[in-house]
Structures are given as C-alpha cells and as structure tokens.
C-alpha cells in the first residue's frame, strides 16, 4: 500500500496533556549531554528568568512523538515503520519548555511528495501549553521507502 495522500488535511485530535517533570528534564539533559546549568539547576534557571529547569531544545520530540504515533496508527496511512527514515527535523519555539508545563500537541500532515518510489511526508506538531499559548512547533520529514529495505535515523 503506498503512502495515502489523503493524510494531508486530515483532522487529528490533540494529544492528552503531557506534564513536564523536573526530573524528566534532568534525565533528558543528561542523555543529550546538555551541561548548561539551566537544564538541571532550578536556581540557575530562575536567575536566567525561567520558572523552573529548562528542557533542551530537542525535548519537544517526546511530545511530538505522541502525534507520530497517531499518524502510524491510522489504518490507511500506508506508512511502514520498518521502511521509514527520519530525514529532517525542526523545532520553532515561541518560548522554551520548562518543568511544570502541561503540553498538548496537534498533528497536521502538511505535505506528501513522491520521490522516485519513495514518499516524503512532512508533518507539524503544534505544541501549546495549558493556557493554549504556542510553545513550539515540531516539524518532521519522514522518508518512507518503497522496498523492504529498512533503516531508521
């Protein structure tokens, strides 16, 4: 089954609220070698003007991933995970994610482009806080292969 072009424009429900925990931010910061003190030290984060520890930029992927799971769960998507490569990723921030944020993401598939026998799927996860304010938009480009050779970035 090829990738379904009807995914573009389909309405996806917002994900369940994700509560950003302070220890989760610290754990993620250690995992991505983020040594800047605002990621782990509350006092340092507050001196820099933030309410609590600041998540490293790619932490938004944890919330974005909930939307990609929605995409993969669509029964007619035509996307096979084993043949899917992460080709590009972008985060566009209005403000950083900090511990205590309650975040919700809404998926929009913005484009599907055929590339040889492959398909390039671009999607935006728009991530907002509990008051509905924009925090970050996470944009992924997934390359879905047509044969059964699989790899994943």
């Amino acid at each position: 089954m090829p990738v379904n072009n009807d995914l573009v424009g389909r309405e996806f429900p917002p994900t369940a609220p994700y509560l950003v925990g302070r220890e989760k931010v610290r754990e993620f910061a250690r995992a991505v070698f983020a040594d800047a003190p605002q990621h782990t030290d509350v006092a340092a984060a507050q001196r820099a003007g933030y309410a609590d520890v600041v998540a490293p930029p790619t932490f938004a992927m944890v919330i974005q991933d909930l939307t990609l799971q929605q995409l993969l769960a669509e029964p007619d998507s035509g996307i096979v995970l084993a043949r899917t490569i992460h080709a590009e990723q972008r985060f566009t921030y209005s403000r950083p994610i900090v511990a205590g944020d309650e975040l919700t993401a809404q998926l929009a598939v913005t484009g599907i482009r055929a590339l040889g026998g492959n398909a390039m799927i671009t999607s935006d996860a728009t991530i907002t806080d509990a008051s509905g304010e924009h925090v970050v938009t996470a944009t992924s480009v997934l390359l879905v292969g047509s044969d059964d050779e699989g790899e994943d970035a």
Partner: protein
Amino acid sequence: MSELVVGDVIAERTVHLTRESLVRYAGASGDFNPIHYRDDVAVSVGLPGVLAHGMLTMGLASSVALAALPADVRLIDYGVRFTKPVLVDAESGADVHVLAKVGAVDETSARIDLTVKAAETTVLVKAQLRIAR
C-alpha cells in the same frame, strides 16, 4: 547579539558515545527502537550495526552550542537534515565531533551553524540554531 562575530567558533567538543549512551537516551526519550541497542536486529534489517538515534545526535549537537551561550539567550529555531547514521561499536563506541560557529548576526538575533561529524563523515547537514535575546 553584538558580542558574537561572524566566523567565530563559539564551541567545539567531541562527545564519546557508548552503547550505554544509547540506552540512556532510549529511556529519556521513549524511543526504544531495537536498532539502537541490539546488533542482531540492526543486522537483520540490513544495517552495518547498532546506530545512535538521529535525535540523540541532534540533541547533543545543540547542547554543545547552548552551553557556550549565556543562559538567558532564547532559542528561536533549530533544524537539521539527517544524512548519515552514527555507527556505535559495542566495544569502541563512537566519537561525535561538534563545531559551533557564528553564521550570521544582526542586532537582535544570530545564527549558529553546527558542523557535526563522526568517523570523518558529516552526519547532520544544515544544522543551524537561530537565537535571540
């Protein structure tokens, strides 16, 4: 952003990844794809071996740059293209080399360009952070 000068290297670091780093990132991120910790699975899908998560490479590359900047600098945008995987040997691991250079500056914002290599190969392309105060 006037303290930044186009062409200046603001940070350079080699991060040594081991299989433990990959398991640690899997736990922190929730990405438990076995190609990032099981040789047999990696080989069965045609890979030369276990690979680092692309998002781990992207994440550590921004960490190198942000650690060199004042804490009140705001990140506006960070994007990369994944070009080559980082192969992480079970015994010797892998070294990821990150060079962060000022690419452009205006009064309120700046662009930091990242060069990210493993085993002499560029693994992220167009890796750029836009920052502001």
